[in-house]
């Protein structure tokens, strides 16, 4: 008895040790990953004189909010641009994705099996390869240099991922629910509206957060398709660094301001995001 129990505990001990050994590289990698964030944070609080390459690792002498105020003044119109661009982009592409996902998951029509793979193909086209024709096209339809043009592009580029998410989610809606609705006399639209939309909240959370984040963080489309009045915050931040003699401290404060909305969205809605991603089955 005693021998077996001691051998058991020693094997448990070894497993314990192995787990801690695994933790060390994980912690080191996390620190490495967080270094730029640290630099951004400390620099944002430094005064102009403190900012130099030699002292970049040092903590600031005090907490200076001046940088944030200055950065905010400069970025305010562009933060607003980002917001009024991202909200319609996320909402419209989510709605389209939901409709697409419903039709593809629940309606067999000639070629229906082909539509989804073709749609998903859109996710694998590098943005860079379509930039020039896209810019020309936007100019031709008169949306170049404007926020609505950027909204349109984000809506279209969002369709593959939103469609895929809703498709996967709607495939888990029990077939019997759809059949019950059929017998009860609900048509295709009635079924979508009465059965699918009400159970879609988790999928909408996932897709809205995803679209909000990717449209907010986008730089490439924004820099090509907007002018300096309609720049979203990502482009404005870049130009704040390049075109004026401003020290890193204000830029770093601006960076944090630009990143804040997506961080907040994830911090406050992240659990719904995970729950939505994992919402596999609908319980009756």
């Amino acid at each position, binding site marked *: 008895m005693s021998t077996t129990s001691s051998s058991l505990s020693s094997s448990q001990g070894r497993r314990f040790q192995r787990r801690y050994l695994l933790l060390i590289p994980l912690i080191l990698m996390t620190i490495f990953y967080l270094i730029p964030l640290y630099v951004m944070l400390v620099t944002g609080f430094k005064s102009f004189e403190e900012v130099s390459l030699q002292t970049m690792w040092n903590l600031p002498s005090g907490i200076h909010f001046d940088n944030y105020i200055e950065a905010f003044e400069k970025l305010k119109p562009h933060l607003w641009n980002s917001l009024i661009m991202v909200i319609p982009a996320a909402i419209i592409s989510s709605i389209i994705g939901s409709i697409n996902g419903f039709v593809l998951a629940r309606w067999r029509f000639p070629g229906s099996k082909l539509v989804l793979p073709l749609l998903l193909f859109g996710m694998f086209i590098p943005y860079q390869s379509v930039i020039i024709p896209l810019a020309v096209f936007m100019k031709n339809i008169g949306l170049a240099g404007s926020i609505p043009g950027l909204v349109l592009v984000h809506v279209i580029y969002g369709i593959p991922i939103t469609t895929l998410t809703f498709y996967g989610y709607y495939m888990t809606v*029990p077939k019997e629910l759809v*059949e*019950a609705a059929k*017998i*009860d*006399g609900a048509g295709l639209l*009635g079924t979508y509206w009465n059965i699918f939309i009400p159970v879609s909240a988790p999928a909408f959370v996932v897709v809205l957060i995803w679209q909000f984040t990717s449209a907010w963080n986008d730089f490439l489309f924004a820099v090509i398709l907007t002018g300096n009045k309609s720049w979203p915050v990502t482009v404005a931040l870049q130009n704040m660094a390049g075109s004026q003699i401003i020290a890193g401290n204000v830029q770093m404060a601006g960076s944090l301001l630009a990143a804040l909305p997506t961080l907040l969205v994830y911090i406050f809605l992240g659990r719904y995001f995970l729950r939505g991603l994992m919402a596999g089955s609908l319980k*009756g």
Partner: protein
Amino acid sequence: MATIKLQQVEKKFGDFQAVKPMDLTIQDGEFVVLLGPSGCGKTTTLRMISGLETVTTGTIMLGDRNVTWLHPSERDVAFVFQFYALYPHISARENISFPLRAQGESKDVINQRVQEVAALLRIEHLLNQRPGNLSGGDQQRVALARALVRRPEAFLMDEPLGALDADFRETMRAEIKQLHIDQNATTVYVTHDQIEAMAMGDRIVVMSEAVVQQAGSPHEVYYDPANLFVARFIGSPGMNLVSSVYSQGVVSIPGTENRYSVPDGWQTPINETLEGEGQIVLGFRPEAAQLKTDGPLSGEVYASELQGAFSVLHVNVNTDDIVHIRSDRQIDYPIGTTLRFDIDPQMVRFFDPGTEAGIKREVSQ
């Protein structure tokens, strides 16, 4: 309510024949059970009646309407699913009223009818709950209410009790039967549970391998199975079927001294079927065997199972065939005991092993 008439209805999925052309008429107000093992085509048949599945060929009449190509919602049938298929995000009340709302009924009519069926099924106190908060039995009651509320031409039920616990199932069985008696509604009920079928059906349609094996009252399919499949499938345990040889009014079990004289009324049809003599299958239910010291048949006890009110003896009548005999639970038959028994002449049956069909007794005048 209406009659349902299937005429040469067939369903193929690609090359797979799920239902071979079948005819079936379900009378107005009749409770018909489609019974069979899984994959026999019973559910497909039900789904074709509902319109959830289209027919490959054939015609479906509902009353005097040809509904073969109508959309499910236009057929005026209600469907009850095994897993209830309640809409999870709305209350029981809204679930029940859903078909009426889809038809655009007025609020007053909806409220009144929901109240009526809720009272009928005794679920008034559950109307504001969501399905997720209800027990399986209550969910199925709500699903039944949703079916009833439309006052459809026919009720179609696909193993509605299959997902319930055993004791709940018995309660619900009685409730559904009672509901049918109340409403006198044409009902088609699919199950693989023969006890359910026997308990509920006015008529049982036994299906196997995409074909109707027999359609008849519970009494008929139990006592006069049309073929070996039905004989085996109905009853638990099923009918005893012993391969034997027939000659000159006597059935003998090969390799044994077991001889059984064919009762009156059987000689002529057996002679006709076998053209004199030959292989035959002797069939009898466990309760048809009568233990007697001077019985013409004998066998050795192989196992004995106490089933509560009675025991079931497994008796070896030759090297291959074990028969089940129902016996008094008070008497102990040790394994290895040799028993003699007779078969109630009213309850013995014979089958042609070639066609597997049951041989029909001469109708006594």
